[in-house]
């Protein structure tokens, strides 16, 4: 029973990490209709930035996460118009061109990380690293709990932004129809650029927590890109709400399979289940977008 409860906690906390990773990705797909291959790259760069801030300036990740958020908001905002330009290109299949474009960005990030930080794994220390909370037989790692809480905070903040602000209204209008939103006076290009900025900021912030929980090296990007894709597909591409359900479901499934069936089969069963769900509900768990 103790192991069962611990597995429950482990699963929920893994879910938190998956939600953190995917929430911004969903937003950018919902609004820009871009499948951003660089999602793992932003995660990796967020982790490395936190690594630099903690080693060079001694800034704890729980403070540097705000700096990382602000920095990547600006970077994403700067890159946003380019993504928008590629996505709305008059040439054939701009959706595929955007995918290829973000893949190029991802490769650039990976090469840059190799050059700057070499191949070795780096861990990011925080005041909460290795700290835990014991509740009877269950141990709750505080870093993972923080990531989970942050995922909830991200989701809440995003919902407030989307449903309680004029900017959010413009974002939702864009998600529904770019042309109509433009005709109603929404500055499509500008809002799209800010959405991309919010996405990179959220994903890089998730990277700070992920690097603190695990470690970061230039090859982790592809791993997180895959995870973000799978959570997003299960959630229903573009559905921010669905990410919460899908992230938790995948986290719990992975934890229980690894504990009671065998870790070797965890990803096989998780992704097998994902394909089955998609056969039954191809629009994702909530069946709708933003």
């Amino acid at each position, binding site marked *: 029973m*103790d*192991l069962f409860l*611990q*597995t429950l906690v*482990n699963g929920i*906390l*893994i879910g938190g*990490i998956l939600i953190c990773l995917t929430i911004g990705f969903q937003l950018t797909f919902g609004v820009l209709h871009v499948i951003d291959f660089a999602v793992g790259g932003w995660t990796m760069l967020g982790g490395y930035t936190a690594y630099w801030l903690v080693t060079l300036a001694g800034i704890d990740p729980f403070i540097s996460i705000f700096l990382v958020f602000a920095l990547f908001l600006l970077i994403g905002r700067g890159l946003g118009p380019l993504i928008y330009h590629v996505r709305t290109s008059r040439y054939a299949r701009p959706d595929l061109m955007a995918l290829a474009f973000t893949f190029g960005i991802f490769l650039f990030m990976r090469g840059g990380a*190799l050059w700057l930080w*070499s*191949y*070795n*794994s*780096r*861990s990011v*220390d925080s005041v909460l*690293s*290795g*700290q*835990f909370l*014991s509740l009877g037989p269950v*141990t709750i*790692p*505080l*870093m*993972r709990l923080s990531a989970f809480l942050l995922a909830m905070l991200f989701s809440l903040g995003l919902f407030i932004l989307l449903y309680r602000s004029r900017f959010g209204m413009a974002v939702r209008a864009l998600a529904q129809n770019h042309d109509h939103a433009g005709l109603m006076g929404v500055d499509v290009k500008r809002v799209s650029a800010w959405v991309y900025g919010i996405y990179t900021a959220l994903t890089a912030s998730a990277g700070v927590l992920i690097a603190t*929980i*695990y*470690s970061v*090296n*230039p*090859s982790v990007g592809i*791993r997180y890109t*895959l*995870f973000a894709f799978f959570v997003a597909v299960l959630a229903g591409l573009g559905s921010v709400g669905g990410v919460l359900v899908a992230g938790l479901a995948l986290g719990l499934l*992975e*934890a229980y399979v*690894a*504990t009671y069936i*065998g*870790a*070797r089969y*965890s*990803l096989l069963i998780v992704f097998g289940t994902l394909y089955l769900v998609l056969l039954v509900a191809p629009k994702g768990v909530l069946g709708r977008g933003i």
Partner: protein
Amino acid sequence: MNHKFSRRKFLRNSLLGTGAMTLGFPALNVNAKEHKIRVGVVTSLSGANRFGGNLTRRGYDLWAEEINKLGGIEIEGKRYPVEMFYGDAQSRPASGADAAERLIIQDEVDVLFGPYTSGVTLAVQPISQKYRVPMISGSAESPNVWLAKPAFNFGMIPAVDLTTDKSMVVLAENLGDRAKTASVIGVDEPFSKETAEGFRKGVEESGLDLLSYELFPANSDLSAIVSKLKSSNPDIVAVGGHEDIFINFVSTAKALNYKPKALIMHYGVTSAAFINETGPESNGILGVSVWTEGLPYKDELFGTASDYSELSFSRWGTRPDYTEAACSASGLVLQDAARRLGKAPPWDQGTRAELAKAIEDTDIETFYGPVGFAKEGSHYHNNTKPVPAVVQIKSGDVVPVAPENASKGELVYPIPGTS
């Protein structure tokens, strides 16, 4: 006398001069080659494995520098300097094979020194076989390299399944009655799986009770695995994987309030990067190393293992690890084989085949340890002689703790703060 410059005379003289040079150059070239042994190094000088690739280069270069200080390799009383040529494998097997072919055809090397990773080695060894150029590999550790029974390739580091197997036996013998159970986990990928398999074999050979053996995908979150280990709490936990998995295991275990009584991993734990990244948590962790500077081995060129370490430190500014040591010892193997071959370079294809036979018959003691290549079985042409040392991290230092002849300190068991 007419000293007038004539175009016809100029052209005739130029033609004669060029002809003489063209005819004379090969003779000069052959003459130059006669006095040197041309060694080609295929390794990853760029790409993801460039760090390890450069370690191999350092090891090979250090040997070349030292032997050239003496005038070169001694054959039949005469010394032949060594000339090094480099081919960048770019961390890709196919590029490694191309680089090897270039070294053999364009640079006309007499012998190859092998790549950093087993993957590149597997791609390069058919090339060495095709052109019958002996290759001494200072770094390949996967048993798959030797399963192919390469006629011209020789591996200095015992395959990972041998080292992990032997190290677990050594550890169990040292712990005696204090350890009765063990669990083995590993990443489900070729190298890590072979490491884990070796640990499992060692557990069975040493009579320990194997509580669990589990492989997991490289991308797994380790919390479930650590929770299970915490629940069963074996006396020894062995992990097969690479450095990032080790770091993740240590941090996940710490976050879940679990500290195994003994945690043994593989070579990566002895690297400065691992110790830096895990900080005080690395204290007490056990690793496996086929070579450390504290081992009681020596030879004529480098002196003792400790002398080699000092020499390498003064040359490169960092302490050598087992990879650098094995690569430098590759040169000692070539030296010994060339001396026994007794034929002056350059070596034609037939002579190179004789050289390969001489390398196969190697039986020497070096600062790196004993070298002798298996002539049959699943580890064909792998140096199976070294007995790995079990090392333990103590306050950031890597200290050999077993077997007895290599020990420089007490094995701390259980690790303080154990669950």
